């Protein structure tokens, strides 16, 4: 029988090695607070949250073809709902993360309704306008500080689930324990995001999405419902981005409309991370966030030069190597750490 002679494989030697390495890294990452300094924990928190934002933007732009420059709307609204929940209704900030995601999702529905009327580049501007509308509206919300912003109330900070327990086992002060809690949550979020996107891409719908990425017309001709996939991707990305936003400002402890809805911090940086790393792959944002962090550390003392270098590198990558750094690596070596390609192997 012909069917018995072949098997469908997605695994590669590199991916098996990568999975083992990822598992080992994960164990180290979970145990990290036991031996790492507080500043390392904070750096790791930054890397992990930026990685999460980058993965979701990559899902939107790299796979869904939805180049949004309005993701700061979800970061900002997510963050504000966490603060609003804690201040107005006494919601525990850790539980408030769910509010962040849900409200970002609720915002995504009308936003998609407007923005999907615009094609391509105009979609980008449409999302930006909606983000501006949300920022200007939130600045009118006096209960959370209006235009000047506010801090997370002291009792909400003290009540965060798990902090006391972390204080006890690591024998640290409450502020360090909160950083550890935020770090673990960021780690869980990043792992869930990468794992979730990877598993999704390996399903039938994921295959449809990858087909859309490669060629919209061809994908539609074999029955992929592109409009439905776009909605799905947009809503999922909004939910995840909202949670990440809530988490970033939970750790920060202070919020203002300008910081929560910053297009530079939550969209421009994220776009550079994805583009420099390699758009349309899961590995790309991981490489990108490491390069981004390295650049930021190296150029921290040079102020505006740092952003100029970032902009310049972004342009250069787009001009000379549109696949990004990871595209260079996998193009030369054929290595895929998160393979989604199905290969037909003959059984011997």
């Amino acid at each position: 029988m012909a069917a018995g002679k072949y098997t469908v494989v997605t695994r590669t030697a590199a991916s098996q090695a990568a999975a083992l390495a990822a598992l080992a890294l994960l164990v180290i990452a979970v145990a990290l607070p036991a031996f790492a300094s507080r500043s390392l924990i904070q750096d790791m928190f930054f890397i992990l949250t930026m990685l999460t934002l980058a993965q979701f933007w990559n899902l939107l732009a790299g796979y869904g073809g939805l180049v949004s420059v309005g993701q700061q709307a979800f970061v900002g609204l997510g963050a504000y709902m966490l603060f609003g929940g804690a201040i107005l209704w006494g919601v525990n900030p850790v539980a408030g993360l769910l509010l962040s995601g849900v409200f970002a999702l609720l915002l995504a529905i009308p936003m998609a309704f407007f923005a999907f009327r615009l094609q391509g580049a105009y979609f980008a501007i449409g999302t930006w306008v909606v983000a501006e509308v949300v920022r200007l509206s939130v600045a009118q919300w006096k209960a959370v500080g209006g235009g000047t912003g506010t801090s997370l109330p002291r009792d909400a900070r003290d009540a965060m689930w798990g902090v006391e327990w972390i204080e006890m086992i690591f024998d640290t002060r409450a502020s360090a324990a909160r950083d550890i809690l935020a770090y673990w949550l960021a780690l869980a979020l990043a792992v869930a995001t990468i794992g979730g996107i990877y598993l999704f891409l390996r399903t039938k719908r994921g295959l449809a999405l990858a087909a859309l990425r490669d060629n919209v017309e061809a994908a539609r001709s074999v029955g992929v419902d592109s409009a439905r996939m776009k909605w799905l991707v947009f809503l999922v990305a909004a939910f995840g981005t909202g949670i990440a936003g809530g988490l970033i400002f939970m750790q920060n402890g202070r919020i203002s409309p300008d910081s929560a809805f910053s297009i530079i911090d939550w969209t421009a940086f994220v776009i550079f991370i994805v583009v420099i790393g390699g758009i349309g792959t899961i590995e790309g944002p991981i490489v990108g966030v490491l390069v981004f962090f390295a650049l930021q550390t190296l150029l921290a003392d040079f102020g505006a030069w740092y952003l100029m270098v970032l902009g310049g590198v972004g342009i250069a990558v787009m001009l000379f190597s549109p696949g990004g750094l990871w595209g260079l690596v996998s193009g030369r070596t054929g290595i895929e750490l998160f393979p989604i390609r199905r290969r037909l192997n003959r059984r011997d």
Partner: protein
Amino acid sequence: MIWIDTILQGILLGGLYALFALGLSLVFGIMRLVNLAHGDLIVFAAYLILVLVTLLGLGPFLAAAIAAPIMFALGFALQRLVLNRVLGTDILPPLLVTFGLSVLLQNALQEGFSADSRRIPAGWLETASVPLGPISLGVMPLMTFASAILVTLALQWLFYRTSLGRAFRATSDDPVTASLMGVKPASVFAKATGIAMIVVTIAALYLGTRANFDPTTGPARLIYAFEAVIIGGLGSLWGTLAGGIIIGVAQTVGAQINPEWQILAGHIAFLVVLLIRPRGLFPRAFD
């Protein structure tokens, strides 16, 4: 009476927004390129005029006349050396390249001119006004509006009465066929961006003389410009002017109700138009 005044001021403000938008509309109409650095290029041109005014002691209008060919050359080179390489069916590369350019320009200006807000001095014109019955209109806003109409007329003439305009329209319709007829798309695109930069210089002149600007002023201007283009309908120059006026009036009316609502009102007007007429008021192009 206050409402008539508000609406008149809004129409005149709309002239400024139309100037921001016309360059964008021109470039989009010809090569379907959306330049996310457009607002920053306007701010860059404003600094260029400011430097000419302060270093050489020129009047702002003469300075703008000198800045215009410089900006043309910059636009030409930018299109030729960078943007032409990323044009194609995939919209991602041009978006990301111009986005990178935007961040680059903003921070270069910040490094060169600091984050302080500046203004191009325009002497007595800054405060001059003409009485019109019980209302008085500023001379600068009137000149801005007149310039917006003149630029629209000039672009209309360029498009439909000159051989360059014919090349623009032909390349816009079908670059391959146009190139068979001896038109070089690469150089047509470069000229178009150069001309758009002349419009940008005119916009910068009024941006800089009417209000303070700083290196981060660009993105907000870009949004107003885009809103005007989309409200007007893609590819329609008069539509862009109308779109600018709608944003301007919405902003002044919003500000009259509550000063904090000025910008918000403009955005909401845009979203309402998008809801009712997704393709804008006077759609030409199908994209």
